[in-house]
């Protein structure tokens, strides 16, 4: 795991604090009831559901505990966590199965 310096950390914390607040305040504070263009709202609906998988996939395909070597057990635990979340529609059950899977990896690995 590589390290990063304090300055970077604080730039990110402050930048994210300002940026997140701006995103949350933009509409309720300034724009009020004005309508946003449909095409923009349509794309915004899919930000989290696209960015998060794009972030996760490489971390699962080349997991860091194995030094980036693709590993069937890690893939299986990831698939289990995702499947439980999708089927139960419940983050908590998914998180619990993820924790259980991680424990298995830890004990077997």
């Amino acid at each position, binding site marked *: 795991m590589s*390290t990063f310096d304090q300055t970077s950390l604080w730039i990110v914390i402050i930048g994210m604090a300002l940026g997140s607040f701006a995103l949350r305040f933009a509409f*309720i504070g300034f724009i009020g009831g004005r309508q946003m263009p449909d095409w923009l709202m349509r*794309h915004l*609906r899919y*930000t*989290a*559901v696209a*960015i*998060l998988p794009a972030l996760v996939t490489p971390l699962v395909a080349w997991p860091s*505990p194995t030094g980036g070597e693709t590993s069937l057990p890690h893939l299986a635990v990831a698939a289990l966590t995702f499947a439980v979340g999708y089927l139960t529609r419940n983050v908590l059950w998914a998180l619990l199965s993820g924790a259980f899977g991680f424990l298995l990896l830890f004990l077997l690995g």
Partner: protein
Amino acid sequence: MAITTTKSLFLRGLIDSLPFLLVASPFGLLFGVLAAEAGLNVLEALAFSLAVFAGAAQFTALQLLQENTPLLIVLTSALAVNLRMGMYSASLTPYLGGAPMWQRACAAYMTVDQSYALSIVKFEDEPEMTTSQRMAYFFGTTSVIAPSWMIATVIGAWVGAQIPASWGLDFVLPLAFLAMIGPMLRTPAHMVACFVAIVASLPATLMPHNLGLIVAGLAGMMAGAQTELWLEQAAERSKAKQETAP
């Protein structure tokens, strides 16, 4: 009389939010632990949660920082994860937009998945509520969640500092995200967005500075938006056909 109802609505929001504690607390703990593993001390982890107060974006930034990603890309990616807060804010505006500015500013900070999800349902179900009653309910929904997110972060950071790196906790982060993604896939368009982002993300890792994350994310967003459009048009066509049928 009005004061009593406002107070009881605050309590109502508080009670309605309690089940979400079961979700927020483990994620807060986990953020603390992973922050400690990444080298943050308890104070830095708390400052992160306090200043940003958005789980998924915090996890994203933490991961990218550890990969020595340029700061501009860390911020862009983490804020992209948070774009949905803008949508929440937009959809709450018709209900809360009439409140005083300081209340709106506080409400903006408190806009998270849980407070939004509870409030929007309540406001739609009970259109007779006044703006101040709505604000009371909204603040009720975050009055326990927000402090417990902070406390969980601190406990996690403290615990995480004692955990040796050899446990391979790095892999918990993708698992936490996977747990969040599953329940988000509510429509075929969500699934297409997710699938396209997954497929695009693997070759995209060849791009420098983690830029591939933004490219794959955009590809997923466009795929989701386009699918939504197609499905709407298909639904309209079949409706039109039924209407013209004898």
